[in-house]
């Protein structure tokens, strides 16, 4: 992974000193709330329902074991002993005190970490594929480019007071696991006919109040122009993005207003001035140098898989976990392993200090000292020998991190919701719990196959509900929590926004409604057809009828309680 040089290290250390002084001036009354706000946000610090919330950057989701241990230390020392991994591969702590945040940042700096630009109207943590570098469907590892973008965007003098937040994702594989089409800029690595590496450039995707799938503004951008082209996009946005209305300030609104073609034309025009700016060009040597940081670890070419085969044969619970929670690796004899943060009864993405320490140890023992955060809020140990999988599984089981549910209904994405968040209208964690309890039959879960359920506690959509195969959005109606259901969303290659099923349903009914949706699917599916594909074939109607009944014909009796119209 990338290792800081003197410049990187000095920068994060000076950031700590700067923020310590800003915090001091705020507490002394020299900075108003309004003035302190963007300063603290650019260090990931929110003022929340119960206490400040601190979001720490995990660049493109990659963590060294010592960094993960430091997160455990922070959870234990400054928080209530746990943290929450987010959909943007970061981690949030919900209970630090404002006065101690500078100390947390100092601790982070000691392990080459920071909270820089994890919030605020600036370029946020660049996210990527949590399986980067290890799958066979990858064209090229996206992380070197993520790191280049991280450095370029850090304290960018021109783009630190943008109209609104700005998120960039990079994917290097055929299957998009980084949701590039729902980012402000999505970069998809590809090669042109001459075998040259570059990017397909999407802009203007995003969720939130106005969900939009990004549009391609350039089919192929040679990689040497990565920064100059991004700079052109950002400059057009900085100058033209709306600043009069926070809800219309994202780049997606500008792209819609101008039209993708006109937006692209303006970017190209701006780019023509700066394309060959020497300070922005990536040369071969710099790319290779950066790629060197992400070189494959020293894999053993002779891993004996016979013991794995025996264990799979002998232990059906292990086999079940292996089937669900591990992924084929491009190197024979290795697997990538999901560490499930979706155990029943645990808020999705939550992890305790002890678990962080333990996973750090496991990373050292089983996966070359590295762990990753997935945007679906699990952890990944990406390079595990097949002959040690059984051992690892037992260790994870003991830590309650081996729930065999990756990709199933119970592998939900879920925001912190009203329980923690100052923005939320409704709870989301209790809904996830309700679903988890309802769908506790593993055989049924496996029979359902891949179903992505995403839950957000408000329209800001931190739980990415629009792109869940089944999306659940909490809304407040006259002081009561209701949940709007959408079907058919996706953030993968076939990115789509979910369609609203019908009237919002009461809090106690979410799992029942889900059961009916899934029952409709099971009845109607063709052999091996995914939920999403069945939905796309059939449309909303049969799901609607099964959930709400048919109002006019009465041909199908409503079963159980009926969703309320509100």
């Amino acid at each position, binding site marked *: 992974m990338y290792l800081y040089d003197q*410049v990187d290290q000095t920068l994060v250390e*000076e950031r700590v000193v700067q923020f310590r002084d800003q915090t001091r001036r705020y507490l002394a009354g020299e900075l108003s709330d309004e003035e302190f706000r963007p300063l603290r946000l650019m260090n990931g610090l929110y003022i929340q329902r119960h206490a400040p919330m601190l979001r720490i950057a995990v660049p493109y989701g990659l963590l060294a074991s010592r960094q993960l241990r430091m997160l455990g230390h922070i959870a234990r020392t400054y928080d209530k002993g746990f943290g929450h991994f987010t959909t943007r591969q970061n981690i949030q702590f919900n209970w630090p005190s404002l006065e101690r945040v500078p100390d947390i940042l100092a601790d982070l700096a000691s392990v080459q970490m920071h909270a820089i630009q994890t919030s605020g109207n600036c370029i946020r943590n660049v996210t990527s594929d949590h399986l980067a570098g290890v799958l066979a469907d990858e064209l090229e590892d996206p992380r070197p480019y993520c790191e280049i973008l991280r450095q370029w965007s850090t304290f960018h*003098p*021109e783009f*630190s*007071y943008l109209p609104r937040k700005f998120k960039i994702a990079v994917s290097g594989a055929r299957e998009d696991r980084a949701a590039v089409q729902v980012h402000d800029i999505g970069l998809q690595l590809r090669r042109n006919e001459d075998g040259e590496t570059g990017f397909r450039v999407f802009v203007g995707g995003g969720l939130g109040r106005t969900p939009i799938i990004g549009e391609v503004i350039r089919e192929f951008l040679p990689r040497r122009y990565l920064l100059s082209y991004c700079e052109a996009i950002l400059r057009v946005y900085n*100058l033209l993005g709306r600043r009069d209305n926070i809800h219309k300030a994202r780049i997606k609104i500008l792209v819609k207003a101008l039209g993708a073609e006109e937006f692209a034309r303006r970017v190209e025009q701006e780019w023509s001035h700066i394309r060959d700016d020497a*300070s922005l*060009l990536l040369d071969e040597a*710099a790319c290779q140098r950066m790629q060197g940081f992400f070189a494959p670890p020293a894999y053993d070419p002779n891993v004996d898989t016979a013991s794995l085969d025996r264990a799979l044969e002998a232990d059906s619970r292990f086999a079940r976990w292996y089937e669900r929670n591990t992924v084929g690796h491009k190197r024979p004899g290795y697997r990538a392993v999901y560490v499930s943060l979706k155990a029943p009864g645990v808020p999705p993405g939550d992890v305790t200090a002890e678990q962080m320490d333990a996973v750090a140890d496991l990373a050292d023992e089983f996966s070359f000292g590295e762990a990753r955060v997935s945007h679906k809020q699990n952890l990944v140990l990406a390079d595990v020998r097949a002959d040690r999988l059984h051992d690892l599984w037992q260790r994870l089981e003991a830590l309650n991190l081996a729930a065999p549910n990756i990709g199933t209904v119970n592998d939900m994405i879920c925001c912190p919701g009203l329980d923690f968040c100052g923005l939320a209208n409704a709870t989301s964690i209790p809904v996830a719990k309700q679903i988890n309890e309802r769908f506790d039959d593993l055989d049924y879960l496996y029979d359902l196959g891949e179903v992505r359920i995403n839950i957000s506690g408000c329209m800001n959509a931190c739980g990415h509900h629009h792109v869940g195969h089944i999306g659940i959005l909490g809304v407040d109606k006259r002081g009561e929590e209701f949940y709007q259901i959408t079907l058919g969303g996706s953030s993968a290659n076939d990115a789509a926004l979910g369609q609203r099923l019908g009237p919002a349903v009461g809090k106690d009914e979410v799992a029942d409604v889900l059961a009916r949706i899934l029952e409709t699917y099971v009845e109607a599916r063709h052999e091996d057809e995914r939920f999403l594909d069945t939905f796309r074939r059939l449309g909303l109607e049969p799901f609607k009828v099964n959930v709400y009944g048919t109002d006019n014909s009465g041909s199908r009796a409503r079963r159980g309680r009926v969703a309320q119209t509100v």
Partner: protein
Amino acid sequence: MARIIRDRALVEDEWRRLSDDETLPEADAIIVSWQRWLDERDALAARGAPLGVEIDGTVDAADVAADLEHFELIALAFPVFKDGRCYSHARLLRERYGFSGELRAVGDVLRDQLFYMERVGIDSFALRDDLDPHQALSAFEDFSVVYQRALDAMSPQPRWRRAA
């Protein structure tokens, strides 16, 4: 005269911002609004005394560029400190259009943005009235390292064009 920061030092400000309905003085160094420049350019250009113009994020830097020869100073207005459009204007005026006169940040100019402002080529700062510019001087030294090449003295060699 008010004190401003210029080239990291506190100085007395010899410039005066003229409101649009004030009569043109003969000799003073004045800063006029962009609109006034458009309306009275001949009279302003013929005056033979230092002239500055104030623009905000809504004015296209390319329009200003066409008239650069008339201006010794361009004031970039930050109506609220979060409005970052003039960071782009500053870079464009310096890098693309070659403006070498004084670029001044005016309006809601606070200590904690000075570092960024200086990096995009702004060299003078009229802090918000209630702030003590003396206390803000340390802001320029918040960081001793940066990643990007920009318009300040500390800009490094291009970080993305070096071999191992």
